[in-house]
């Protein structure tokens, strides 16, 4: 579905110090800096895969998505999307893909979203019967009944994002590029959007490439992740592998039925990440975990026990720290 070989994208950016003198000087002499937004990145994505694209701000994620969508021309390297060169923006490709960004929208600002849906139906030449079926499905799944006839400018951010997704899917694209689709949304709206993306991808066997700073998006949607940092690919593989490789220790949370003194807690389980008389959180490696948990169950009034990986945000922070970057 997607093949990227040695992709390089450099920008030439004008820089100048603040102040009037610098502004005047820049009218006849300009200093430019070359920003290596993407630097020799290679990967392939198979049809139907859902892949997360992770990295700190300015890592090159959005630039790569824009190259794949045909908006940016690479400085060098070879990119094929559905076997086609996105630089030439062939109609066949544009009819099969969609890029949804949380920051830029295609909805017509002064008209109700249903007008954008109708426009897309005409532009993508979707048959009326197919359009009616797709819209029924989208309106139901995204709960849009009360929104589609109001002017877009009068919708909340979350409502607009849901309508934006619907507008992007009128032509049932086989390949979805999602750039921060849940940015600025509240927790419940994030969850709705996330569930919808997963459901759409499953039902239409659509390929999804997603960037997000919300690790819940990544954990819920994309088993495979590509990690990019300062333009270079630093990881390509299973999310679980990334977590185990970066933070092999497990977090064990113990809840007690009666208060436990700190000395007793230290004696039975050793060091804790955090503790109170009625609960304790330990971070221990997989090998030692069985023994420590057995000792806790035997020597402490444990009423509940939870074992989990470290939060993904912490894992990623550690990952970038280990790679010498900064998230």
């Amino acid at each position, binding site marked *: 579905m997607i093949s990227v070989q040695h992709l390089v994208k450099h*920008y030439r950016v004008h820089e100048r110090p603040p102040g009037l003198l610098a502004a005047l000087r820049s009218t006849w002499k300009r200093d430019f800096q070359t920003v290596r937004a993407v630097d020799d990145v290679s990967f392939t994505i198979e049809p139907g895969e859902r892949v997360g694209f992770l990295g700190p701000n300015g890592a090159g994620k*959005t630039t790569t998505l824009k190259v794949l*969508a045909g*908006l940016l021309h690479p400085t060098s390297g070879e990119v094929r999307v559905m076997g086609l060169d996105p630089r030439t923006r062939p109609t066949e490709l544009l009819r099969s893909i969609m890029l949804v960004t949380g920051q830029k929208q295609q909805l017509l600002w002064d*008209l109700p979203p249903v*007008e954008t849906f109708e*426009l897309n139906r*005409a532009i993508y030449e979707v048959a009326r019967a197919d359009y009616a079926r797709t819209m029924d499905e989208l309106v139901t799944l995204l709960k849009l009944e009360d929104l589609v006839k109001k002017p877009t400018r009068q919708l909340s951010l979350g409502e607009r994002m849901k309508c934006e997704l619907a507008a992007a899917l009128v032509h049932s694209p086989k390949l979805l590029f999602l750039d921060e689709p849940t940015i600025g949304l509240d927790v419940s709206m994030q969850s709705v959007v996330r569930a919808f993306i997963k459901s759409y991808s499953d039902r239409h066997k659509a390929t999804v490439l997603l960037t997000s700073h919300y690790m819940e998006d990544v954990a819920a949607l994309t088993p495979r992740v590509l990690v990019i940092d300062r333009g270079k690919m630093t990881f390509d593989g299973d999310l679980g592998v990334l977590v185990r490789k970066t933070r092999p220790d497990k977090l064990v949370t113990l809840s007690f039925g009666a208060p436990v003194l700190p000395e007793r807690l230290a004696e039975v389980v050793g060091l804790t990440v955090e503790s109170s008389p009625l609960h304790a959180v330990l971070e221990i490696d997989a090998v030692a975990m069985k023994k420590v948990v057995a000792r806790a169950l035997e020597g402490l009034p444990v009423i509940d026990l939870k074992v989990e990986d470290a939060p993904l945000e912490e894992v990623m922070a550690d990952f970038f720290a280990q790679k010498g970057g900064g998230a």
Partner: protein
Amino acid sequence: MTAALTALPRRSFVRTGGIVAALARIAFAAAIAYRSQFIVWILATNTPLVMLALWSSVAREAPFGHFGERAFVAYFLLTLIVRLLTGTWVVWEMNLEIKDGTLSQRLLRPVHPFLVYAVDNLAGIPLRVLVSLPVAVVVVATVARAELTSDPLMWLAAPFAVLGAWLISFSAMLAIGSLGLFWESSIALWDLWFSFYFVFSGYLFPLELFPRWLLRWVAVSPFPYTLSFPVETMLGMTSRADVLSGLAKQYAYGVGFLVLALWLWRRGLVRYAAYGG
């Protein structure tokens, strides 16, 4: 030229017609939504009325060249109509969209942005006709009736001359707007174009009032064909042969600017930075 034109989507006429109809319907709905802005724009196009008042008072004392008071009234009312029908603003839209990255949304759709810009612009014409039609009726029914041509062939040519004037203005704007992909902003170049347009299109005064030596130079530029030519056609100020050769020059300029715009657009997209999300 062939390469540039083949970049346009290859689809059947009927399918393109369906897309154009949908774009026009949406653009018209948007024009209505922006009705207050539209009215302000209409009011801002009142320069010909100011010039009418000015030149009429000058001609009241004595005719100015071939122009008496009535001729000036007819000239400037027709100027207002042609200006209302052929005015475009796409260069500002293009510059803004290039700068803030909104252009990306257009590029993602399988329809050439030039076609969308053109339909957006033309969809505003029905509203402009609402304004210009009463003016036209006033012209025909009152003072200036005698000044209009009675030659039916001139009236046959007039709509083509108005369309040609729009084509030159719109294509030149597309070409200058496409330069926004190379420069940080190409608005300044449009301002330069517009300053020439103001003087050499016949917007401020009839070109006949220019000295002959200057008129010869102005005649080879595109500016007279953006306004003065259709107005003079309706006033019967040119011969049939001159109208035909004028139409040929007008469409040559229009197509020439369109080809230039497509060429600049294709090269400019390589440099497009798609900033802003």
